[in-house]
């Protein structure tokens, strides 16, 4: 008793504690992409240690710049591809099958409640939506993860965030997490796990929970985490149906990954978000957040709908609902990147791609590209972008550019208007 979900996961995975407050954990999965992994690979090769701890537990994708835009990015892809082939890493997603890492790995069933996962990507915290401990790490931690299947962490101090009430129409998980980051500030959760609970979270789809957990890092959090429930089981069912007789059995098993009622928290925040409005960032820090209402009329040059935060089918459906039968403003460029090929296909079947195209959006292949200004929608100096992404850092989407973070609904409405505006779903 008295343990949080993260502590329980630590207890189940601890290899040893070589030093005080140093918990070396066994990893259930190591995720890799082509930006942070190649240097780990070449370093292992240079050390004569080109091995992997378990090719089944390593998953890899080319997602940041795909198709390759130049010789350097082609080389990064090649290093990852050659390495995956050499070591028999079956779950390697190359062009045509690739998608944004934090969308495609859950979609393929690689994330399960109680898992420990690392990746050389800060938004790895997304996977906590499944009741897993998933943390972004640097290349050296990744390298050791690939080689040994372990990673060292400090004790997972936890902040509990209880979300009560009912979200108003036009208000989504993105608005909730922007509000939370505003409240906690950009380092309010540093070195801590952010546990999201309460009726609002219970009601959320897995997609919305991923949006919530995805931005835990923007408050400094190690991992966002939600308790597994029937929504989690339903999402995973196609992957776990041979392991359990019934969904209830699966839920019973996964229910061990829930915090005890008397668990000890660093802090507990309780919010009633019934009156929350759509939110948007200003400035260059993700805690610089205001209601959209106060930013109405702010001119934008580009709208980007996509990324590991909001590029999933639910996000595209919401945006399409607003864009249907409308045209985007003459002075705006619209770009949408469905986060995975399956999302793209589903959007095609549902007529969503057509709605985007008819509205004047450019539909790109799944990639992270524009979110971090690497490819696929880089801003020019002085331009601003209404984006469903996760960081509004100075120059993030292109040197001298400004990013306003918002929900897909707000982004779609702003695309039509040419300036930042609340979606009709809200008004």
């Amino acid at each position, binding site marked *: 008793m008295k343990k949080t979900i993260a502590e329980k996961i630590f207890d189940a995975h601890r*290899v040893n504690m*070589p*030093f*005080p*407050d*140093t918990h*070396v954990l066994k990893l259930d999965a190591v995720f890799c992409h082509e*930006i*942070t992994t*190649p*240097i780990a690979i*070449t*370093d292992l090769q240079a*050390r004569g*240690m080109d091995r992997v701890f378990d090719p089944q537990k390593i998953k890899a994708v080319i997602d*940041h*710049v795909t198709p390759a835009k*130049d010789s*350097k*990015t082609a*080389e*990064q892809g090649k*290093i990852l591809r050659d390495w995956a082939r050499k070591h028999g890493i079956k779950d390697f997603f190359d062009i045509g099958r690739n998608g944004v890492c934090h969308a495609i790995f859950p979609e393929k069933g690689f994330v399960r409640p109680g898992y420990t996962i690392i990746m*050389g*990507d*800060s938004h*790895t915290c997304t996977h906590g939506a499944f009741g897993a401990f998933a943390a*972004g*790490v*640097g*290349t*050296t*931690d990744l*390298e*050791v993860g690939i*080689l*040994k299947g*372990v990673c*060292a962490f400090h004790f997972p101090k936890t902040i509990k965030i209880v979300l009560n009430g009912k979200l108003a129409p036009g208000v989504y998980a993105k608005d909730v997490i922007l509000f939370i980051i505003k409240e906690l500030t*950009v*380092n309010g959760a*540093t*070195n801590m796990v952010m546990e999201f609970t309460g009726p609002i979270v219970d009601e959320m789809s897995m997609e919305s929970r991923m949006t919530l957990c995805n931005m835990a*890092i923007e408050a*400094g959090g*190690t991992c966002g985490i939600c308790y597994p429930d029937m929504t989690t089981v339903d999402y995973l069912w196609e992957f776990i149906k041979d392991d359990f007789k019934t969904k209830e059995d699966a839920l019973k098993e996964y229910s061990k990954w829930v915090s005890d009622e008397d668990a000890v928290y660093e802090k507990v925040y309780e919010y009633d978000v019934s009156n929350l409005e759509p939110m948007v960032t200003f400035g*260059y*820090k993700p805690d610089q957040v205001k209601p959209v209402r106060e930013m109405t009329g702010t001119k934008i040059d580009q709208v980007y709908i996509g990324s590991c935060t909001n590029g999933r089918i639910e996000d595209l459906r919401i945006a399409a609902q607003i864009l249907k039968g409308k045209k985007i403003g003459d002075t705006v460029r619209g770009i949408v990147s469905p986060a995975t090929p399956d999302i793209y296909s589903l959007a095609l079947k549902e007529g969503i791609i057509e709605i985007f195209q008819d509205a004047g959006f450019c539909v790109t292949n799944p990639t992270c590209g524009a979110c*971090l*200004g*690497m490819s696929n929608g880089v801003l020019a100096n002085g331009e601003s972008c209404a984006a469903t992404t996760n*960081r509004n*850092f*100075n*120059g*993030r989407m292109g*040197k001298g550019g400004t990013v306003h973070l918002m929900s897909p609904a707000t982004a779609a409405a702003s695309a039509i208007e040419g300036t930042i505006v609340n979606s009709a779903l809200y008004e």
Partner: protein
Amino acid sequence: MKKFSGKVLFLDRSDINTDEIIPAKYLTEITKEALKPYLLEDLSLSSFDPMKDIDGKSVIVTRANFGCGSSREHAPWALEVNNINVVIAESFARIFRQNMYNCGMFAIELPREKIDYLFETYKNKDVSIDVNVDNNKIIVSANGQSEEIDFNVGEFDKTLVKEGGWVGYADKNY
């Protein structure tokens, strides 16, 4: 062990993120050395000029939450290839801090009043800092005078500094 001493670069701002330390467009480089010219290129800080201000500096002193944002280890690498192996701050983002120690570099946390004191006393002076690894002290020197400030570092982090990083240690022990 790396070298943990030299002239100080003061960066008087909190929440300096890894996109500012090394912009994402340079993450296509596959050698650390290639990052050298781009360190702090997008830093939003008035009167800071990366072309002039970094040269000859080996220690950074800054405010809270240094290295927030992306997990890119390119941030410590960009420092390392510019001969900066020590950052002293009020606090660090978790991943950046771990990346520093994983590379055998120092991310030293000091209480806010000590950081304030360093800025107030030394910001505009020609100042050097030397890290005494064995005694957990930094020695601050300017104008022929010097003073010592204690700092705390965990055993794990110190072991990584002494062993030159996490890969070697993990290979031996796991």
